[in-house]
């Protein structure tokens, strides 16, 4: 951490000293804007090795070599980053990178149907080497016709098939950052900033263009010529029946002023087969001049934003070709500043990129900040202040929208007035054109008649002369009858011919009269045209006034809505930052809640546990009572049995006594019988006594049972009460558990909110230039980076240098001449590129989006992974060869050294101790297969996310 901090101080000193002497540089201004608006003061900067990799990839398209990293890390000069930026930009590889950027941006990998890729790239390269500004380049592209100047410049038009709709769309997207496609047939349904008249205004420029075949050398080629423009009429598919005029215009601007030409007078070179027509007024030229004038903020900001995205990974306006208020810049002030300054420096792309590279914004760290809490605290005040502004900004936007709505309806009213007049003008123009055709026809007729006269004259004269001479000869030889007859014939023929000539001359006069009549009629129509024009003029002037008002209202509406949305995004970002603490506090509170709930749970659990003994006692009591009850019941049963048995004995005896008494009546006085009766009676008495006893016993047993029943009921009631209490305690425990579970679940939700907020916040911070962002390498960067780290590029480069040094060595004197040295460097780069460019194709088909699709979207597909994992080329490039990283790993004796070579060579940074250990372990596990192991390691690094992205 000490190094970046030291660097921060140095930069500030540097900035301070600059401020004293000169006006602020753009990079200082950019940093100042961010500093004034950032919720995080002085965010951390990236490490030196990260900076070097980042700058090398951006400016040279490849990561630095291990030696370059070592040298940079060892360099202790405070301005080494700035020096490195200049060093990288001095390389021909910077020019190559800029050419690739321009190529992909302009052509989006479309097929080369008219201009070869070599021609096109050479053309771009020349412009880049000549340090042409973007305005010049754009003007050249937009006015090219493929015949004048360098043909390659016409590729933008020609390889889009010269289609007016495609060109309208792509010029809008690529040069102005506005994709107007959905405004083609109606005002844009989703993007209120884009109107149908924007689309139609651009279409009015490009529908004048057309493709024509022209002979160049010994072959015919397509060229992009231009007709004289006409007022297109269009109607919205939403509001049929209301015609509009579409004059040529730039997005958001007023209609172009155009000179008026009578039909037939519009061209300096009229359209014809195999000819490039040249209209006296070129809409395309007017469009190109206006767009590149520096006054059109859409044009200026579009490229400034694209160059920003080139360096920073994401544009200030994130979707590069949809600048509109719903896709607002992350920093409106900065976008305006960037656009103005880019235009003010004559659209110098190098200078602009250099300024971006020198900003602290460019040098931000990529890693997630370790502690956001303090920033979260400070952000709440900013958030409150920002939120307090929202209502006013919203109101301004609403007002601007209302003003726009009024301006738009006034414009359309004025247009409705103008449309019939224009229609009339068009009709008179058509009439004039028809009349012109008649004049031409009449003139042709005169010429033909005059031709007839001349032809006749050519016969009349010699015949007349011959006739005269024959007459003279006949007079001189009056005898000669034959001669006289001949002379008569001549005379007759001469007279006849003279009569014919006279007729023809009469015809000429007739045709001349007719011609004069048509010319007069034409002049009359011309007057009509002029009258129609005069009628149009005040209406057009009125419309232009409304147009100017509309332009102002639109710019105001777009500006205020952009400001509003930009503001709302800032509020959202601040909210995310504030949420860091809010969510953390919620989490802490929730953790406390969980702790409390857990304590409650422990208590409840104890309540359940403690009560167990009481439950057991009650259960035992109940069981005892149950037992007693059973015993009593058994005793009752026994007593009743005994009672019954006794009763049976008594009854039997009673029967015996009754029978004996009956015998005594029959045998009265029989002693024995009497004794027996007496004895039986005696026994009966004792038996009855016992029966009485048994009855008492039964009674007692019954009472005992009743008593036991009471006791059992009491014990059961008691037990039920205890069980109820236990159930309550168990439920209390379960409730406590539920509360704990709920609280834990809430914590999980909060933690997931925190993760999401964190991710969103990091993204916002990247957008607001507090952190840097990941940026995938382009297909070209992937290709050249792999060639770079595997040493393939260096091997080919060395070969080219050797060849050049042999074929045309630079003298010592030449070596002192920067121009010659640069020329040599360029030649070496060009030759190396030419040798290796054949490999680009597979990278483009694998890693780039399809032809004609936007090229700035990242996607990770299986075929890419399969190509890197198993494809032949990469397997062969990672093999050990002539001092490349694989060979250096193989040759390294100590594992630390191997790890260093590996990480410096592929990741352009030193390995951490853990990484060194991993490498050592990998190599050790492979024993004597070190070359294979080294190759696998290099492959692993190349196929990792750390290599795939700039960070």
């Amino acid at each position: 951490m000490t190094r970046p901090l030291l660097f921060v101080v140095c930069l500030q000193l540097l900035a301070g000293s600059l401020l004293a002497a000169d006006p602020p540089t753009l990079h200082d201004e950019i940093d100042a804007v961010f500093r004034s608006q950032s919720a995080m003061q002085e965010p951390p900067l990236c490490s030196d090795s990260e900076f070097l990799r980042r700058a090398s990839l951006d400016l040279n398209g490849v990561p630095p070599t291990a030696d370059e990293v070592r040298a940079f890390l060892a360099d202790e000069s405070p301005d080494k980053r700035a020096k490195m930026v200049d060093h990288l930009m001095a390389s021909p590889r910077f020019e190559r990178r800029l050419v690739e950027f321009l190529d992909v941006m302009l052509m989006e990998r479309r097929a080369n149907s008219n201009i070869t890729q070599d021609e096109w790239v050479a053309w771009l390269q020349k412009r880049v080497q000549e340090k042409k500004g973007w305005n010049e380049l754009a003007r050249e592209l937009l006015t090219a016709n493929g015949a004048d100047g360098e043909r390659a410049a016409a590729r933008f038009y020609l390889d889009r098939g010269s289609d007016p709709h495609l060109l309208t769309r792509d010029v809008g997207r690529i040069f102005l950052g506005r994709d107007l496609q959905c405004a083609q047939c109606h005002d844009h349904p989703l993007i209120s900033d884009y109107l149908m008249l924007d689309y139609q205004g651009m279409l009015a420029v490009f529908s004048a263009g057309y493709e024509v075949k022209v002979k160049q050398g010994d072959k015919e080629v397509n060229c992009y010529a231009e007709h004289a423009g006409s007022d297109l009429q269009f109607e919205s598919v939403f509001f049929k029946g209301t015609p509009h005029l579409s004059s040529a215009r730039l997005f958001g601007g007023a209609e172009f002023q155009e000179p008026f030409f009578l039909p037939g007078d519009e061209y300096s070179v009229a359209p014809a087969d195999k000819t490039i027509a040249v209209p006296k007024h070129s809409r395309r030229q007017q469009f190109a001049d206006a767009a590149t004038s520096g006054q059109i903020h859409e044009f200026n900001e579009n490229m400034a934003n694209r160059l920003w995205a080139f360096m920073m990974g994401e544009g200030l306006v994130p979707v590069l070709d949809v600048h509109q208020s719903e896709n607002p810049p992350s920093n409106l002030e900065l976008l305006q500043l960037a656009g103005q300054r880019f235009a003010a420096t004559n659209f110098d792309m190098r200078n602009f990129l250099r300024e971006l590279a020198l900003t602290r914004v460019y040098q931000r760290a990529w890693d997630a900040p370790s502690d956001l809490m303090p920033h979260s605290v400070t952000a709440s005040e900013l958030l409150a202040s920002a939120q307090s502004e929202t209502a006013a900004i919203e109101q301004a936007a609403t007002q601007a929208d209302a003003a726009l709505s009024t301006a738009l309806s006034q414009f359309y009213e004025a247009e409705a007035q103008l449309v019939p007049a224009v229609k009339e003008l068009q009709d008179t123009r058509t009439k004039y054109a028809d009349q012109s055709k008649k004049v031409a026809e009449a003139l042709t007729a005169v010429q033909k008649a005059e031709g007839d006269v001349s032809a006749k004259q050519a016969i009349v004269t010699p015949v007349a002369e011959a006739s005269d001479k024959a007459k003279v000869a006949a007079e001189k030889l009056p005898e000669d009858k034959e001669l006289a007859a001949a002379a008569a014939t001549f005379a007759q023929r001469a007279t006849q011919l003279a009569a014919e000539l006279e007729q023809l001359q009469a015809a000429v006069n007739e045709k001349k009269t007719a011609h004069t009549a048509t010319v007069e009629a034409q002049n009359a129509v011309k007057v009509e045209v002029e009258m129609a024009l005069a009628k149009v003029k005040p209406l057009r002037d009125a419309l232009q006034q409304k147009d100017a008002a509309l332009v102002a209202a639109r710019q105001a509406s777009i500006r205020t809505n952009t400001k509003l949305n930009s503001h709302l995004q800032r509020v959202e970002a601040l909210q995310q930052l504030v949420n860091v603490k809010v969510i953390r506090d919620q989490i802490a509170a929730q953790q406390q809640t969980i702790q409390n709930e857990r304590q409650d749970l422990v208590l409840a659990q104890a309540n359940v546990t403690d009560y167990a003994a009481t439950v057991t006692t009650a259960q035992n009591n109940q069981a005892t009572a149950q037992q007693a009850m059973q015993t009593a019941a058994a005793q009752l049963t026994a007593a009743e049995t005994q009672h019954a048995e006794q009763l049976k004995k008594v009854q039997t005896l009673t029967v015996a006594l009754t029978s004996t008494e009956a015998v005594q009546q029959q045998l009265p006085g029989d002693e024995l019988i009497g004794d027996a009766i007496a004895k039986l009676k005696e026994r009966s008495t004792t038996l009855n006594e016992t029966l009485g006893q048994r009855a008492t016993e039964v009674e007692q047993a019954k009472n005992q049972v009743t008593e036991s029943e009471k006791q059992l009921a009491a014990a059961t009631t008691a037990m039920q009460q205890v069980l109820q209490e236990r159930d309550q305690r168990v439920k209390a425990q379960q409730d406590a558990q539920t509360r704990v579970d709920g609280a834990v679940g809430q914590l999980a939700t909060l933690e997931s909110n925190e993760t999401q907020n964190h991710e969103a916040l990091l993204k916002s911070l990247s957008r607001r230039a507090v952190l840097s962002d990941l940026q995938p390498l382009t297909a070209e960067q992937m290709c050249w980076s792999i060639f770079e780290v595997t040493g393939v590029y260096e091997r080919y480069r060395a070969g080219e240098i050797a060849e050049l040094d042999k074929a045309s060595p630079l003298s010592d004197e030449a070596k002192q001449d920067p121009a010659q040295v640069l020329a040599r460097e360029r030649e070496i780069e060009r030759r190396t590129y030419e040798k290796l460019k054949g490999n680009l194709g597979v990278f483009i088909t694998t890693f780039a989006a399809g032809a004609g699709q936007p090229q700035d979207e990242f996607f990770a597909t299986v075929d890419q992974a399969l190509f890197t994992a198993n494809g032949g080329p990469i397997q062969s490039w990672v093999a050990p060869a002539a001092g490349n990283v694989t060979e250096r790993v193989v040759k390294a004796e100590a594992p630390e050294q191997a790890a260093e070579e590996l990480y410096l060579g592929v990741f352009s940074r030193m390995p951490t101790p853990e990484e060194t250990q991993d490498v050592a372990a990998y190599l050790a596990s492979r024993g004597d297969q070190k070359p294979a192991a080294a190759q696998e390691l290099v492959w692993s690094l190349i196929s990792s996310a750390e290599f795939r992205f700039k960070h």
Partner: protein
Amino acid sequence: MKVPYACGSQEHLLARRGFLGTVAAGAGAVVGGLNVFSESQAMAELASEQKRVVVFNMHGGLSQLESWDPKPGTDTGGPFRAIPTSVPGIHISELLPLTAQQMQHLCLVRGVNTSEDDHGKGAYMMLHGRRQTPASDYPTLGAVVARTVTPADPSLPGHIVVTPGGSGGRGNDAAYLGPRYSSITLGNGQPPQNTERPGALTPESDAARHDFRRKINERFLNRRRTAVADAYAYSYEQALSLMQKREIFDVSKEPAADLERYGTHDFGRMTLLARRLLENDISFVQVSHSNYDTHNENFNFHLEQVAEFDRSFSAFVADIAARGMLDSTLIVVLSEFGRTPNINQYYGRDHWSRAWSVVMAGSRVARGAAYGKTNANGTAVEDGQVDHANLFHTYLQAVAVDSSNSFDINGRELPFADPSSHGIPEILT
């Protein structure tokens, strides 16, 4: 503008891993569809049951008169007869005797009128459901299906084109849906490119280097987790998974008897491969049969070509039905256009888009049906006229995709199918 990765709902977070396969995540721009997540979810609701689509593209322009809509005994009918099929009342050309026995599964659409007689433009319309316009390119049916029909196995490509030649690489036919949904071409029935472990690597060392790669990625992601890096790391896991399933693409694993049934020619092999791919839950397969552009000797050509098609196609339909896949598989037989009723002086038929036929089967499509009607000698549609846009809507609706829905690409709503058109409800059950 919201960042797709942090769209803020619990379900999305939970489902993240599952979606990574389909994420074309934002880096340079806000990318790959702002609503990658919500949209995928919407898709899941649309097609919960795994659906599949197979398209037989009769390249060059199949003659409807020598196939689905014969007019024997008329001035335009040519030499071939019409034969009865397994569905009483429906007759097709005698060149399709085996297919005639599968008619109970098929639905003939005989009133197709596309008004486009150019090969390129016609093919574009039939496969994209719209006319090509210079300023806007549309994704092909395969890309739309791959995007809207949730695959059972996200590691497999969702959009396969089987051709006799071809590179084995990724096509450029997904337009704004992005390369994730572009076709993978299986040229000569070969598996996708680079699906074999490099010869110099043992399985162990390949596993070791991938482990090392994972370790590096983990360290990098721990510094800061991002959707793009996650998606990139995950693409390698998908690649490994695909390598393990490489045999799915190897038609030689199918029984020899099946190849015999399908025919041992290219088209037979490709059709059998299509069956294999569909059985393995590939969402969309397109097979081409070349070449029907019979300006000369139309009848000889069709005699030979249609016989080849008949054998493979009938076996395919029978198998799909027998294997219980017909309810979830849409089968389409299309061309760029049909051929003229008029027979030219070279015994050929020329390009003709006014009255021709497309065949569908399976999924929600009515079985054993003939929809639409041409006049007696086939020179005009008399009833049930449909065009490419109606058909495109119908294909999607047949696999339970709401064709009136739209993709959300960077905030732009782009309809699945031509919003000014609609499907053919009469043939959907």
